[in-house]
């Protein structure tokens, strides 16, 4: 089994954790009537890690987060927050967790600082420290000055998200869960939220679910991909790329006969083939997309050597197209669907 896909079964030796993880799910299952939202989900998130939680709509991301936050009871399995079982000690678990739900519900008729102060007191930040802590998070989240006095209902989506994040980190919990923190934001706002999450690195454990895959790739140490309620891939972007992607992609910009170039490809590698070719641009160059086998370290060098040796083309660019998390996500969820197809049929 590939390294990145190793998901230790509950109770196995591989699941024995030396340092206490901040988040741990052991065989979590949640059923809504006859619909199984998550199925036997097991994973751990180490202290200080920022982990991306990916999956298509309805995959079970929010359900998992709601179970950890104590809002939902799991049908079976166990969820631990900072080593505390959520089902047995929900209040204790809540004290160690900051949760920003999807759509970030906030009271429209309260002012930012006033709301955060109330939340700080509800989260049992001591009265003497609450004011200073609110000021601290207001500054961290860029909500100081005029924004702090504004009614939440008048804030833009980006600022509302900041208030949600400020609320989640307010009581300095060990773990923060963010359900789609960047949904509906413009690129500037996404960037500022990403910086904010980056600033938490090492201090807090963060589990973020998102559809904005480049954002997850940029700010997360590790990625978990869930599909149809089951964990289908866990690992770093690099390890997932290695394990899940079977093809590599190359981009070549050249001027000359494309048919001759295509004939050259089997000489470079038997698996290399022309995938697409653009129209000739104003300079007479074409952009060619090549597909080859993944994990062939010498392929790029061989291609470069072969093209330059012939010398019958003018070459502007030969580049390896780095596969993004999007491709990994698609590969993992496709693979997951293939694996789960009999299961899905069973529960239809």
């Amino acid at each position, binding site marked *: 089994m590939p390294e990145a896909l190793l998901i230790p079964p509950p109770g196995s030796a591989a699941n024995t954790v030396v340092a206490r993880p901040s988040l741990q799910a052991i065989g979590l299952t949640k059923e809504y009537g006859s619909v199984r939202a998550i199925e036997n989900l097991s994973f751990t998130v180490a202290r200080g890690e920022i982990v991306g939680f990916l999956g298509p709509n309805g995959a079970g991301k929010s359900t998992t987060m709601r179970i950890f*936050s104590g809002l*939902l*009871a799991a049908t079976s399995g166990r969820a631990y927050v900072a080593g505390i079982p959520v089902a047995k000690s929900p209040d204790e678990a*809540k004290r160690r967790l900051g*949760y920003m*739900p999807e759509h970030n519900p906030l009271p429209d008729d309260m002012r930012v600082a006033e709301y955060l102060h109330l939340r700080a007191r509800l989260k*049992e930040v001591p009265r003497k420290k609450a004011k200073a802590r609110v000021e601290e998070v207001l500054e961290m989240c860029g909500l100081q000055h005029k924004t702090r006095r504004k009614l939440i209902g008048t804030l833009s989506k980006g600022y509302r998200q900041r208030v949600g994040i400020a609320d989640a980190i307010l009581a300095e919990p060990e773990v923060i869960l963010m359900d789609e923190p960047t949904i509906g934001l413009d690129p500037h706002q996404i960037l500022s939220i990403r910086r904010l999450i980056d600033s938490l690195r090492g201090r807090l454990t963060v589990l973020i679910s998102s559809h904005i895959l480049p954002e997850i790739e940029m700010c997360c140490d590790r990625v978990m991909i869930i599909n149809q309620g089951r964990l289908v891939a866990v690992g770093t972007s690099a390890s997932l790329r290695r394990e899940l992607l079977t093809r590599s992609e190359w981009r070549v910009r050249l001027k000359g006969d494309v048919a001759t170039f295509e004939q050259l490809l089997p000489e470079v590698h038997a698996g290399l083939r022309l995938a697409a070719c653009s129209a000739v641009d104003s300079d007479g160059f074409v952009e060619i997309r090549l597909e080859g086998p993944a994990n062939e370290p010498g392929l790029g060098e061989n291609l470069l050597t072969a093209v330059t040796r012939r010398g019958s083309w003018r070459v502007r660019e030969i580049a390896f197209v780095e596969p993004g998390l999007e491709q990994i996500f698609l590969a993992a969820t496709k693979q997951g669907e293939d694996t789960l197809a009999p299961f899905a049929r069973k529960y239809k």
Partner: protein
Amino acid sequence: MRHFHLLLVHELRMLAVSAATYSAAVLFLLMMGLMYFLVIYQYDNVFQNDPPSAQYFQVFWIPVVFVVPLLTMKSLAEERRHGTLEAMLTTPASTLEIVLAKYFAAYFFYIGLWALTLLFPWIAVLFLNPANPDSPLHDTASLSGGFMFVCISGLLYVALGVLASSLTRNTLVAGMLSFSMLFVLIIGGNLLLHLPWQDAPFLANFHPVVEYLQPFQHLQDFSRGVMDTRPFFLYASNTILVLGMTTMAIEARATN
């Protein structure tokens, strides 16, 4: 219950800064002022056995069926619709604390409104200036008895409003549900008394039970200075039951 006080102060503060609170208060006081005026006017023209204060509290059900739904329909339904109740439940505050804070905030406001109407007899005395110190306008006993009844029965009526608000996300539906429950409880029982119970012998024993549960009967007792512990027990125990049901309704919807 460490979060209860905090949540209660927050709820009262939100009521204090809300324009809707003042609109409701003005409408309530206008309506009750008009009622009191009509009672005095009637008293002046036709001989009455009961003092004006006792008669004034006889119409307690009108503000109850209108004002209680208005006060409570938003409390939990709107929080559920906006998702802010869910956000509240992610803190260590318990569901019971949240329900109690909402309930007592609405209850205190309700009692506060009624307390303001205690000024009506004082205003009447001030303007009518009765020469006789034994004038029925000075009858504080029936006034305090009636007010005590409002305080005790309000425990249950406000709790029913909060329960209705916990059952739906739609504030309008919550308001209608609350109105219906209060109407059946207060007026429905009174209507039952007018049914020909005696004609059906097997139902005859229900008559004293329905009569005992009558809020109008309790009000009459309180206005006459009869302090029976049974209404206290009836309203308090039912309030606890209704608030328990509200807590369970919130928890069942939140965790399933």
